[in-house]
């Protein structure tokens, strides 16, 4: 099975609006998840696309022409709520029956005061407002808590401060700006987004990359995953004041980033992936240099992270904090390690088995969705990524690292999925009659998961917020685009 789909636009059946929403409901009731949902301007009207991913890995795209309004299904399928708000904000379409139609990014000349805040009544309720500038070196976002004493009733997350307008810019800029823009969707997920973009681009130009290029991309993606997971576990230990692991992991994360830098000169893997393959090859010397650094980093990670799991004071803070149940995770369609920590067995790598992930399997999950689960899930993934990288490095196929990418097919739609370190990344690209990009839609996994953080905080203590936030470690800029 392929992790992308490419279709001429004329082959995508345009449904009646009524049929579109009933089809969407049927698919979501059957357990499909929404991977992307957007409206493309078409004259004075809009064309509404929903990209659905079934449990067995089939990608289905449904489409309809809409004018003035769309029907909101968020009340029945909470996974849609942010997508619907996004459509309303970007197009000006009304969303009929949305429970909380706030803007998502405050674009279109709106100011931060144009949104509304959810308020709880009662004399003893107090409100805590945090951000956009937080304590710490972190991206901007605004959080509002409705509390009774220490207990949080509701956490509202308002983002948009990082909004740069990347989606709108892509059809307008010259070609050599595509990748630099995509790589900065979320700086810590440069490889994940660049690979997804490359998949879309290659699908539209019928280009197949060499096994060597695919393996090298896999190595870069897993290095990115390991670096971020190690960093996250360190940050979690820092938040419960267990400093040994925190200090060790902060440094080990850097060692893994430096391994990526040996590969391509940039710690975040910038400029490594290009449509058609990769920009840098490895020879024996580079391989050796990378592996010796990488093996040492992994060895250190094992000794640093193992300290956590039998430390009672750490476990006491991790366990039963910020729990997200399996049912909640499914309803919100959480993705990535956060979902797997709530025992949702969903991983793009295991679903599609594309090269070089053909042997990748998920083991049965029995985690209960608390901070411990999210930390432990990361640890399991670090171990798996290590094995993958070792295996690929030792068995690199020979061959070219890139093939010439041709021009894009006109009037087509392509969509691709990648399991980034935060979860499912999806990109959709639509071309015009000349084969130029006319519409581009990016979805960072954080777009699904922010609501999960809010749910994790329900009935929790406000003092647990930093810990819960770290355990999700979501991207502000990936959400804001």
């Amino acid at each position, binding site marked *: 099975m392929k992790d992308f789909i490419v279709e001429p636009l004329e082959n995508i059946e345009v449904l009646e609006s009524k049929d579109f929403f009933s089809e969407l409901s049927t698919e979501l009731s059957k357990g499909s998840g929404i991977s992307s949902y957007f409206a493309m301007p078409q004259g004075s009207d809009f064309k509404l696309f929903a990209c659905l991913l079934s449990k067995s890995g089939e990608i289905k795209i449904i489409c309809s022409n809409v004018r003035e309004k769309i029907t909101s299904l968020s009340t029945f399928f909470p996974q849609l709520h942010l997508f619907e708000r996004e459509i309303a904000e970007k197009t000006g379409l009304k969303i009929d029956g949305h429970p909380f139609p706030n803007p998502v990014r405050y674009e279109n000349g709106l100011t931060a005061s144009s949104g509304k805040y959810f308020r709880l009544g009662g004399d003893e309720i107090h409100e805590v407002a945090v951000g956009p500038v937080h304590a710490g070196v972190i991206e901007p976002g605004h959080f509002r808590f409705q509390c009774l004493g220490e207990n949080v009733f509701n956490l509202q997350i308002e983002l948009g401060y990082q909004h740069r307008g990347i989606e709108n810019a892509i059809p307008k800029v010259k070609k050599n700006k595509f990748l*630099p823009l995509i790589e900065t969707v979320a*700086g810590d997920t440069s490889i994940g987004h660049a690979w997804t973009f490359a998949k879309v681009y290659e699908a539209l130009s019928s280009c197949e990359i060499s096994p060597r290029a695919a393996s090298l991309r896999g190595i870069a993606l897993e290095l990115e995953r390991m670096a971020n997971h190690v960093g996250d576990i360190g940050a979690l230990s820092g938040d419960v004041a267990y400093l040994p692991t925190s200090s*060790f992991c902060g440094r080990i994360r850097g060692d893994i980033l430096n391994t990526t830098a040996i590969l391509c*000169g940039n*710690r975040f893997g910038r400029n490594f992936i290009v449509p058609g393959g990769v920009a840098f090859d490895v020879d024996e010397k580079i391989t050796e240099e990378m592996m010796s650094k990488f093996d040492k980093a992994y060895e250190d990670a094992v000794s640093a992270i193992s300290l956590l799991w039998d430390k009672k004071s750490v476990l006491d803070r991790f366990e039963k904090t910020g729990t997200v149940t399996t049912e909640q995770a499914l309803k919100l369609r959480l993705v990535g390690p956060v979902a797997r920590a709530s025992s949702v067995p969903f991983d793009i790598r295991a679903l599609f088995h594309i090269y070089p992930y053909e042997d990748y399997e998920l083991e049965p999950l029995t985690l209960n969705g608390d901070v411990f689960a999210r930390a432990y899930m990361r640890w399991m993934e670090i171990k798996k990524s290590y094995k993958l990288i070792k295996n690929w490095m030792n068995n690199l196929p020979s061959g070219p690292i890139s093939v010439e990418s041709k021009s894009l097919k006109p009037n087509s739609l392509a969509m691709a999925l990648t399991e980034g370190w935060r979860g499912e990344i999806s990109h959709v690209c639509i071309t015009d009659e000349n084969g130029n990009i006319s519409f581009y839609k990016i979805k960072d996994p954080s777009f699904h998961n922010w609501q999960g953080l809010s749910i994790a905080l329900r009935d929790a203590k406000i003092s647990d917020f930093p810990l819960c936030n770290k355990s999700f470690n979501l991207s502000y800029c990936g959400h804001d685009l």
Partner: protein
Amino acid sequence: MIKEILARIKQGNKTSHFPFRNIKLSGRYRGFPETNFSKLSDEEKKQLSEICPCDCFSKNGSQMSMDLGNCTFCGLCSAKMPEAVKFSKTWSMAVSSREDLIVKDGFKKKNVVAKPEIKKIFGRSLKLRQVSAGGCNACEADCNVLGTPVFDMARFGIQFVASPRHADGILITGPVTRNMYAALQKTYDAVPAPKLVIVVGSCAIGGGIYRGMPMMAGLPPNIKPDLFIPGCPPNPMTILDGILRLIGRK
């Protein structure tokens, strides 16, 4: 406790010897560029300008220059015309004035000017408030690591603090989006004078890849940087080196 001590012995002391010994970055690292535009024909100069995703190259009469303040160090120019642009391994790149980032033929890398009054006030203790104003979180990540044992900037008395009221200056990353403009201005105003301003990364310095996009506001005119640290993102060494030079510690 014994496990922690054993782990510490195993991990060893990882703090880098910088600034007492020089540090070498990996072989493919792209640092301060040397240019040789003189041999290029007009046609080649045009090609070079077109290849740059960030429009770093500009022509003033026949003299061509490259704006490092906007450069993401992607290396496309050097891959296409290795004779004209050559990225060196020099990672010490911070400067005190915006003009010092405009590289021309025969350009000598300028160093940060450590003003005596800055050294006197902040030389032994500098507390910074970091403001992320619309970037991609890579610069933030590379500022964050300055607190890890490898860089350990606290050994120089430098720290990131939570409140602008406790800060001696602000360190700005990101191109300053319209939605962050007011928050940045307020944070800056809340820092007591005398205060330093450090801009990190090509977005914050010149707009970088986002230059000219409609959601960008840019730095408020009253915020005048004392230190520019180029890169996308700059290597943590570049950031630390710049800050140390600014306060006269290197």
